[in-house]
């Protein structure tokens, strides 16, 4: 087991190198660079930048050097000093920008996950056990409804209800007075008060699909002979459901952790923009649009690293819960 983990970690190194280079190239691919975008922005407000100034800017940002040199500088900075470079647009170190956003995204994602699983698991199990009952049809109806409604639409509706009916401030994760305030107990309370709207929106679509998956997984397991054996032992229906079929039915969910982590960065961008949440998604989008090279690069690199870590974590977890994988 330990050998497996170490081997997997060693394999991650070449993958990460390849992926980081690819990320850098991809960001460079669109025609023009940050300076082009900057000039275009200035031109929109009737300011003209001459060629010399543009060249000066390029030299200052290091954009005039060959790509390989730029990549080398960037990657050594990250590896040796943890320096992700400077965001052109924000004029701040990338690492400062990213971490606060990532922390908030983590809070949002984890709370969404808890709500989603908390709702979906019991309903999915119920749907499977009471297959084709009235309750199953109701759950099926609502889960298809949840799948069919686009999240951004739901976001708009909930914002309307929260703002007009409940008179609550909507948009963002904090009230105005807390946005730039240092962390305090009051700020946390404020965060929780704002969190419920995005959590509900994101949970609705997640719950819907999860109920379907859970129901299908359980239906596969419920008719297995080992369930009958457990029943013949005299276990109560609830105890045997939890111990046997549910345990096996959960395995496919552990695999989903692999793509849960990268979703931290790139998931639910549209909802985050509609609700103007200070999470990673909108910032990634903005940095890509303005060709803010180092910021975008850091995000793309983060997504790749999280994908690799996510699949490692899910493989380890799978091996831990399923002895068939662990012992073979």
């Amino acid at each position, binding site marked *: 087991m330990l050998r497996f983990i170490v081997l997997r970690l060693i394999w991650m190194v070449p993958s990460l190198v390849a992926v980081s280079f690819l990320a850098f190239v991809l960001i460079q691919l669109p025609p023009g660079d940050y300076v082009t975008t900057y000039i275009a922005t200035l031109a929109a407000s009737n300011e003209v930048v001459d060629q010399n100034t543009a060249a000066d800017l390029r030299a200052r940002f290091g954009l005039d050097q060959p790509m390989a040199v730029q990549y080398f500088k960037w990657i050594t900075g990250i590896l040796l000093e943890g320096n992700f470079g400077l965001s052109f647009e924000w004029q701040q170190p990338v690492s400062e920008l990213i971490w606060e956003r990532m922390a908030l995204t983590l809070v949002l994602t984890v709370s969404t996950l808890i709500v989603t699983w908390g709702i979906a698991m019991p309903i999915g199990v119920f749907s499977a056990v009471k297959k084709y009952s009235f309750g199953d049809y109701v759950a099926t109806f609502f889960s298809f409804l949840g799948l069919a409604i686009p999240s951004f639409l739901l976001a708009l509706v909930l914002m309307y209800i929260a703002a007009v009916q409940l008179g609550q401030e909507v948009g963002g994760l904090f009230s105005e007075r807390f946005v730039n305030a240092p962390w305090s107990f009051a700020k946390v309370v404020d965060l929780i008060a704002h969190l419920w709207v995005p959590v509900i929106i994101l949970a609705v679509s997640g719950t819907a699909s999860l109920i379907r998956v859970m129901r299908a997984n359980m239906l596969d397991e419920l*008719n*297995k*002979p*080992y369930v*009958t*054996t*457990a*029943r*013949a*032992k*005299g*276990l*109560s*229906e609830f105890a045997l459901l939890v*111990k*046997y079929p549910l*345990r*096996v039915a959960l395995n496919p969910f552990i695999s989903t952790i692999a793509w849960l982590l990268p979703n931290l960065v790139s998931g639910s961008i549209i909802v985050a923009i509609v609700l103007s949440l200070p999470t990673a998604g909108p910032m990634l989008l903005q940095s890509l649009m303005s060709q803010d090279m180092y910021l975008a690069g850091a995000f793309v690199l983060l997504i790749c690293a999280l994908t690799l870590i996510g699949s490692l974590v899910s493989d380890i977890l799978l091996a831990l*819960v*399923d*002895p*068939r994988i662990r*012992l073979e």
Partner: protein
Amino acid sequence: MNAAPKDGDVVLDVRDLVTHFATRTGVVKAVDGVSFKVSRGKTLCVVGESGSGKSVTARSILQIVDAPGRIVSGSMVLHRPDGSSVDLATLHPRSREIRSVRGAEIAMIFQEPMSSLSPVHTVGDQIMEVLRLHLGMDKVAARARTVELLKQVEIPNPDRAVDRYTFEFSGGMRQRVMIAMALACNPSMLIADEPTTALDVTTQAEILDLIKRLQTKFGMAVLFITHDMGVVAEIADEVLVMYHGKVMESGPVEQIFHAPKDEYTRMLIGSVLRLEQKAEIRLKRDPIKQEAKPVIEVRGLRMHFGEGTNVTKAVDDVSLTVRPGETLGIVGESGSGKTTMGRCLLRVYEPNGGAIDYRRADGSVVDLVSADKETLKQMRREIRMIFQDPVGSLNPRMTVAQIIGEPLFVNGIAKGAELDDRVAALMKQVGLEPAWRERYPHAFSGGQRQRIGIARAIALKPRVIVADEATSALDVSIRSQMLDLMMNLQDELGLSYVFISHDIGVIRYMCDRVAVMYRGRVVETGTTDQVCDAPTHDYTKALLSAIPRPDPRNRRIHARFRYAG
């Protein structure tokens, strides 16, 4: 207090049990008015073919019939050692009362020991659960008792076995674990639902031995469900013959076998006894010409799986010959390499060495091991295969006409009206109504599906057919019909068969010569009579003596010959 329980006391008294399954197409009366008594220290065998309702009867007792099954009426009175009694039929399937009976007073073991145990929990965990549930033991005591139970069912190293998972055990060991679990609370009755059907004959003999010994030791009543009349003859005190949910006949084992009253019982025993001797068709036929040149000659065939230190020698230096018009039986237990051997003949696998010389009709000889693609394609028209599973080997989305006609169509031999005529003729040949041509496989019974498979195999007028356990999935009453059909076709078309089976009865019934395989090697070859009646190799002796014979007056598997190779 009452007197101590003694053998012969009635433990379970079932009267007029009726269990229905409400399906979309109407009510299926799976169990239709069944009555029987099970007594302490005695074994009641419920025997019947598939669909007879024997398994549903067993599950009805514990009220664990799968949905939508439901007990409609009848009574099932459980008499406890303390003199009290309870009617299980009146209990709700989820009630506390029935749950306290399950696993504690009446325990059950099932057919497939692999899938009947959870793959993700240790053996110990699953056994301790019963102890803690019914006897309220703490973890330490439950573990100690579990080790003791595993020792009782003769599992080696019980201390370590406790913490292992089911997939680390062989089939026989898993069934021992199931038995240990069932015995955990000293039940007064054990229900065994085809517990040895998935096992090899030698393993089956061991498990039957074990159940018998434990029954004598603890004085349990045993309700044993099986389709195998041989097993019934070996272990039963009383027998209940079921057909379509009804009891056809019941009585002491002696009476069922030697003085059966009912028509169906007689038919059932008759078809079992038929497989105890050579087929009439074969007794009448002229002997195979010994001097005829073999159609297939296998020399030193090797087929290895895996690499390096982890090599499995599935076929290890095997040599065989098949003469024209002859049936060569290959017999062996699971893992003996007999199926791999058969597949090598069609070069489904690429053998690692050796030669398979195939003599064509014009006398030329082709080595199938080294043949190129084009030759192989030709050869596969002349050597065909029939499979074990009549359900899995037919495409459910193709009509019977399409299935049977496919080899003709694919090889460009017939199409259009000619194809239709050929298919109709083939269907008649295997005893199927040509009017059924547009039906899909699910509309046919198991026996009919196997006929479809045979029709498909003979469509290209082959010279050799490899039949891999072709009758194993069929009920015994259909089995001899299928073998008779195959032998008639053989004489009609001049076919040679390679007949792979684990069932000595089937081999004796139809084969001219037999090769016995054990761990990838052929340990003995000879004429069927010689191998079955006067085996020379110890393994063959052990195999033959482990087969239960359908004669309760001649019980012998408990005194069988054991081979430790």
